[in-house]
């Protein structure tokens, strides 16, 4: 299970970084979302991977670390708010600047 989770986080980060480097606002937005998914998964497993264990004491004999679950919840909520803001900013930038490059202007074609 560790290998699958680690590979998943790696793949998501990889796609996220690739998309961010595309330097177009929509791609960058998707990239940041993927990166934050990767980060959220990473926080989630930082308390160790346990199967079939409860998060509340007294319900099961084995229990999982509840703190990363609380942390990841906070991180998800904040991530949503930030993405929402970024969407609005990107739309505004597209309207004001007339293109969707993050620098606000089309890059010069290399000769």
């Amino acid at each position, binding site marked *: 299970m560790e290998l699958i989770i680690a590979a998943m986080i790696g793949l998501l980060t990889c796609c996220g970084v690739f998309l961010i480097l595309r330097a177009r*606002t929509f791609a960058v937005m998707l990239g940041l979302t993927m990166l934050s998914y990767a980060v959220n998964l990473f926080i989630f497993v930082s308390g160790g991977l346990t199967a079939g264990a409860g998060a509340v004491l007294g319900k099961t004999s084995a229990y999982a670390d509840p703190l990363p679950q609380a942390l990841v919840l906070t991180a998800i909520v904040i991530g949503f708010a930030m993405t929402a803001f970024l969407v609005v900013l990107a739309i505004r930038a597209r309207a004001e600047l007339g293109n969707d490059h993050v620098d606000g202007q089309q890059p010069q074609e290399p000769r």
Partner: protein
Amino acid sequence: MLNHLAILPILVPVVTAALLLLPYFSAHQTARRVLSATGFGLTLVIALALALQVQSGGQVYLLGDWPAPFGIVLVADRLSATFVVLSTVLMIGGWLYGCGRDDTQEPFFLALLHFLLMGVNGAFLTGDLFNLFVFFEVLLISSYGLLIHGGGKNRIRAAMHYVLLNLIGSALFLLALALLYSQLGSLQISDMGLRIAALSESQQWIVQSAAGLLLIVFGLKAAMLPFHFWLPSAYKQASPVVACVFAMMTKVGIYSLLRVFTTLFSSDAGQLAGFGQSGLVIAGLLTIAIAVVVLLASADLRSLVAALVLMSSGTLLSLVGVGTISTDSALLYYAVHSTLATGAMFLLVDIIATQRGNLGDRIARGRRMQHQVATGWAFAFLALAIIGMPPLSGFIGKILLLQSVTGSSWQFAFWAMLLVASLLVLIVLSRAGSSIFWRLLPGKPAVNPVSIWQWAGLTWLLASLLALVFAAEPLLQYFSAASAEFSLPLRHVKGA
């Protein structure tokens, strides 16, 4: 009541901001101003009371009364109280100035300022690394809103870079947090400091990489050399009030470095003691160098002041790296001075630009200004303070800096860099001042009224700079006690 003093600098701004969002206040300008004046005034009084109260020892405030290290804690000691007072004073200056113009343009401007104050104060007061992240996000989302305040192409372009960089920074911060939690099993800063000495060799590698990530995140906030690209354009494009209060933002990065790295990698941390210190000194000195280049290349006053912010940030970063008690107290004095001075300079530049009409803040000859004499004296005052000429606070700050690194291995590099940079600031500011104020074109002054609020904001900040000179002795005692206090590792857990 007094036991709850530590949380009030966070609560008062957030309540004020929430009230300011109500339709009644967005429709009534006077009510809005009275409310935000009450909010700022109350926060200032509380911050000062807190600063006096912590003289009898730091406080650990347990939120919800959960025992440390399991619950979330706020830590109020001299260091955090100093920065809370500083941020409140600066925000009041920006607020007074903003009442003249920004507030009339946009009813939610004041609410955003209060949210920013809440985030900044929270970042200074929290004793928990995850809450540091949360407060970072609070202050960032308010700063995003403030940065695009007023609109316009260039502002949107600068904001895009600022927002994207900070979002990536937040992702890295979370990665670092998760790595640290997985190895240390705690996110309370002082508790982490206790556990770090007991790590095995293989765990130390992971903690080191997490600390490297944290260095990047805080360096991004403080505009440390490879991550400084956002600062000049953001500060140049932001509206003047926003640029003024943003003078605080780089200090949040400096404070976090100071708090987190001093506690985590104290002399008790075994192998990891002093992690990243020499890297910080080098990065700080190089930041000063790049700031000098930006300074010499700037054709208008806004980018000139942005370069000065970058320079003070570099100076502070290298001092954090040297990291002795005497450098830390010099650092505190210089941080307070440079924040207020650069903040005031941003306001003054806008007063100049307002009066000169189309010419704006470009360093070029123009006609006489309407309030030529008052503006000129204010410029001379601030320029002297920033360069570090006696008898103003910059002089005291720079003497302290130079003295405090004496005997360390970085002494000569630091002295050379700081003195050469100061000389160049002197040259650049004299050139700018003389071409704006002395080499006048003939003709009647243009009539572009400067509102009384704008003068009030500037005067408030200038008065606080003067207070910094007159109260230098007690303040320095306070600061050296502060640095002795927070350099003592692990005090908070024991105090709890």
